[in-house]
C-alpha cells in the first residue's frame, strides 16, 4: 500500500513538474566529434527556445542502434529525437515509424541539402530525417611515400593503380604497409568496405529477383583482389582492424594508403594527434573502369519517432541542428574545419570552407555515390555499402565473419563466398523474398 501511494505520489509529482516546467525533449545520439560539439552548443538552442529543455543520451553506435530500434518498434516513447543513419531511414520510414519533415519552413531551404544525401533520406517523396553530417569514403595517402615510390596519385585512381602503389610503398622491415583496409568483421565494418568495393567490380548482393549473387565471378574477383592485396601490402593482423585501428596505424606512419570514411580526413590532418599531418593527400575511391566507384555514402541524421508527445519541440530542434545558421555557429566558435560536413551545397560554395584541404574531395566523393543506383547492373534495393532491408544486419554480420576469416587465412575466398551464398539464399528464402 505504502509503495503504491509512493508510486502514485511520484507519478503525480512528475506530471505536475511537467506542467510547471518547460517541455523537455530527449535526444539520443552517437559518440562522435560532431555530435559532442552539438551538445556543447545546445545553449544557443535553449536561448532561442526558452520553453524547451534538452536532455542528451549519448551511446556508442551499436548500443544506440539496438536501443532506439527497441524503443521505436515498441513505441516506447523514450526519445523525441533520434540519431539514425541512411540504413535505418528507408526501412523505418516505410514502416510509418518516423514523422515526415516535408513541412519544414522555407527558411530551412531544403533544396540546399546535397541531392545524394537527401535522396538517401527520402521515402516515396517524404523526407523522414534531416542530415546532420554526411560522409563518403576516399583514399588518404602519404605524399612522401608516394613520391619515394616514384608514383603520382591521380585524382581518380583505379584499383590497379592502387595495388601497384601499395606494393611499391610497402616496406615490411620498417613496418610500413602500402595499404590499410577494414578487415574486422561487422556489417558496418568490413562488409561496408567490401560491399562498396564490390560495386566498382560490377558485383551486387542480389539480382532483380532477390537471388544472392555471391556465386558470380564479379564477387570472386572482388574478394580475391582484396585478399591478395592485403596479403602483399597490408598490415599484420588486419582481420581485426576496423576504422579506429587503421586510424591509429595511419596516424603513426604505418600505412601508405588508407581507404575509409571522409570524416577521417580531419583526424589525420590534425597535427595534435597525427604524426603525418602535413604529408597526407586525398583522392577519390578507386574504380575498375566499369562506371561505379568504390565509395560509400552515409549520413548521420536526426529523425523524430512517430507518436512522440513533443513533436513540435523536436522539430524545432532538428531544424536548428541541421540549419545553415548552425554551420555558421560552429564555424564562429571552432573554425570552418570543424563544421559538420557533407549536408549542404551552400557550405561547399562558401569561400572560407573551400580553404579546408579535404573539402573539395569530400564533396566529390559524396556526389559520386548514388544510393538509388549503387551497382553496375540493376538491383531491387537502395543503399551503397548496405542493402536497406531489415534482414541485412543479421545477414551481413554472418557474411562479414566469413570475409574476416578469409583474410585471417583460416578459410579460402571460395569457401567464404560459398557460405555467404548459402546463408543469404537460406535467409532470403525464409524471409519470403525468394519465392
Amino acid at each position, binding site marked *: 500500500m505504502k509503495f503504491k501511494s509512493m508510486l502514485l505520489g511520484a507519478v503525480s509529482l512528475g506530471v505536475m513538474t511537467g506542467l510547471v516546467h518547460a517541455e523537455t525533449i530527449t535526444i539520443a545520439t552517437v*559518440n*562522435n566529434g560532431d555530435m559532442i560539439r552539438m551538445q556543447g552548443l545546445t545553449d544557443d538552442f535553449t536561448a532561442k527556445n526558452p520553453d524547451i529543455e534538452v536532455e542528451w543520451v549519448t*551511446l*556508442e553506435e551499436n548500443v544506440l542502434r*539496438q536501443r532506439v530500434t527497441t524503443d521505436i518498434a515498441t513505441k516506447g516513447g523514450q526519445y523525441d529525437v533520434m540519431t539514425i543513419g541512411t540504413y535505418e531511414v528507408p526501412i523505418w520510414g516505410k514502416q510509418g515509424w518516423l514523422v515526415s519533415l516535408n513541412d519544414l519552413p522555407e527558411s530551412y531551404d531544403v533544396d540546399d541539402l546535397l541531392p545524394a544525401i537527401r535522396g538517401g533520406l527520402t521515402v516515396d517523396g517524404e523526407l523522414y530525417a534531416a542530415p546532420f553530417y554526411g560522409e563518403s569514403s576516399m583514399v588518404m595517402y602519404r605524399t612522401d611515400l608516394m613520391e619515394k615510390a616514384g608514383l603520382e596519385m591521380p585524382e581518380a585512381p583505379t584499383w590497379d593503380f592502387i595495388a601497384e602503389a601499395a606494393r611499391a610503398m610497402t616496406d615490411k622491415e620498417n613496418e610500413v604497409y602500402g595499404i590499410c583496409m577494414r578487415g574486422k568483421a561487422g556489417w*558496418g565494418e568490413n562488409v561496408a568496405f567490401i560491399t562498396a568495393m564490390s560495386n566498382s567490380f560490377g558485383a551486387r548482393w542480389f539480382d532483380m529477383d532477390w537471388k544472392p549473387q555471391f556465386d558470380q565471378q564479379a564477387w570472386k574477383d572482388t574478394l580475391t583482389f582484396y585478399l591478395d592485396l592485403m596479403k602483399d601490402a597490408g598490415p599484420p593482423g588486419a582481420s581485426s582492424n576496423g576504422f579506429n585501428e587503421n586510424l*591509429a596505424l595511419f596516424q603513426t606512419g*604505418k600505412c601508405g594508403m588508407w581507404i575509409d570514411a571522409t*570524416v577521417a580526413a580531419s*583526424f589525420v590532418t590534425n597535427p595534435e594527434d597525427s604524426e603525418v599531418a602535413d604529408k597526407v593527400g586525398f583522392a577519390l575511391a578507386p574504380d575498375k573502369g566499369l562506371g561505379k566507384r568504390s565509395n560509400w555514402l552515409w549520413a548521420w541524421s536526426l529523425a523524430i519517432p512517430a507518436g512522440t508527445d513533443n513533436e513540435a519541440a523536436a522539430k524545432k530542434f532538428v531544424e536548428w541542428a541541421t540549419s545553415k545558421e548552425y554551420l555558421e555557429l560552429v564555424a564562429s566558435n571552432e573554425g570552418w574545419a570543424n563544421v559538420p560536413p557533407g549536408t549542404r551545397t551552400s557550405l561547399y560554395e562558401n569561400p572560407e570552407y573551400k580553404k579546408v584541404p579535404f573539402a573539395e574531395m569530400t564533396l566529390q566523393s559524396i556526389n559520386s555515390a548514388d544510393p538509388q543506383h549503387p551497382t553496375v547492373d540493376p538491383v531491387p534495393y537502395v543503399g551503397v555499402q548496405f542493402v536497406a532491408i531489415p534482414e541485412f544486419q543479421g545477414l551481413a554480420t554472418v557474411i562479414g565473419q566469413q570475409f574476416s576469416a578469409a583474410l585471417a587465412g583460416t578459410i579460402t575466398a571460395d569457401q567464404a563466398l560459398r557460405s555467404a551464398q548459402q546463408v543469404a539464399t537460406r535467409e532470403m528464402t525464409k524471409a519470403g523474398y525468394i519465392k
Partner: protein
Amino acid sequence: MARAVTPARKATVTVFAWGVGLLIFFPILWTILTSFKTEAEAIASPPSFVGFDWTLENYSTVMERSNYFLHFLNSVVISVGSTLIGLLVAIPAAWSMAFVPGKRTKDVLMWMLSTKMLPPVGVLIPIYLIFRDTGLLDTRTGLVIVLTLINLPIIVWMLYTYFKEIPVDILEAARMDGASLRAEIIYVLTPMAVPGIASTLLLNIILAWNEAFWTLNLTAANAAPLTAFIASYSSPEGLFYAKLSAASTMAIAPILIMGWFSQKQLVRGLTFGAVK
C-alpha cells in the same frame, strides 16, 4: 602438523601467485594508465608504460561532458536496492529449502537456475512492453525490480549452499532448548551464516553494478547507471581510448574500493565449505 615447505618451493609459489595476480589485474591497470595519457599516446606503438606525460585532461573532459554523480547515484541505488530486496526474499527461501527440504526442492532449485539459461535478449521485447505500459521505463524502481529478479536465482543458490553447510544438529539443539523459529533463525542460524550472507551480498552488488544489458536497454536520460556512462565514450569512428579509459576507471573505482575493503569477507564466504 603442518607440512614442511622448503624455501625454494615457497619462493616459486609466491612468484607464481604474484604472476597470476598481476596477469589478472593487468587489464585494469592498463585502463587506469591509459586514462592518464593523451589520445595520441593511448594509441602509440610501441606503447609506453609509465614514461609518458601524465595528464588529467581526460578526467576533466569526462566530468564536463557527463553528469557522473547522477550515474553513480543510480548505480548505487540500483545495485544496493536490488541486492537487499533479493536477500529479504532469498533468506527465508534458502532456509526452507536447506532445512526443510520437500520432495521437489531439488527440482525447484534447478528450475530457478534454468531461468538464467535463457539469453536475456529473448525477453527484452516483452519486458520492454510491460515497462512501457506500467511507466517503469527509465526509472530506478524498474531497474531494481528487474535486477532483483534476474539475480534472485544466484542469491538463493549461494545461500542454499551456505546453509547446507550448517549442521542441522545445532539448530535442533536450539529447538530442544526451547528456541522459537524466529529465535532460531536470528540467534543461531544467522550468526553462523554471516560470512555466507556477506559474500552473497557483496557478490550481488558487484553483479548488479556490472550488469550492462538491462541497465542499458531499459534506461534513457534519468535512470542510466554507470554502464551507460561508459557506453557514451566508445565510438567506432574516432579516437576515444583515453577518455573511455578515464570513464571506465571512474565507473569501476567505487566497486574496486569496496571489493578491496571487503576482500576478507569475500574470500571467506567464497571458500566457505570448499574444504570438506
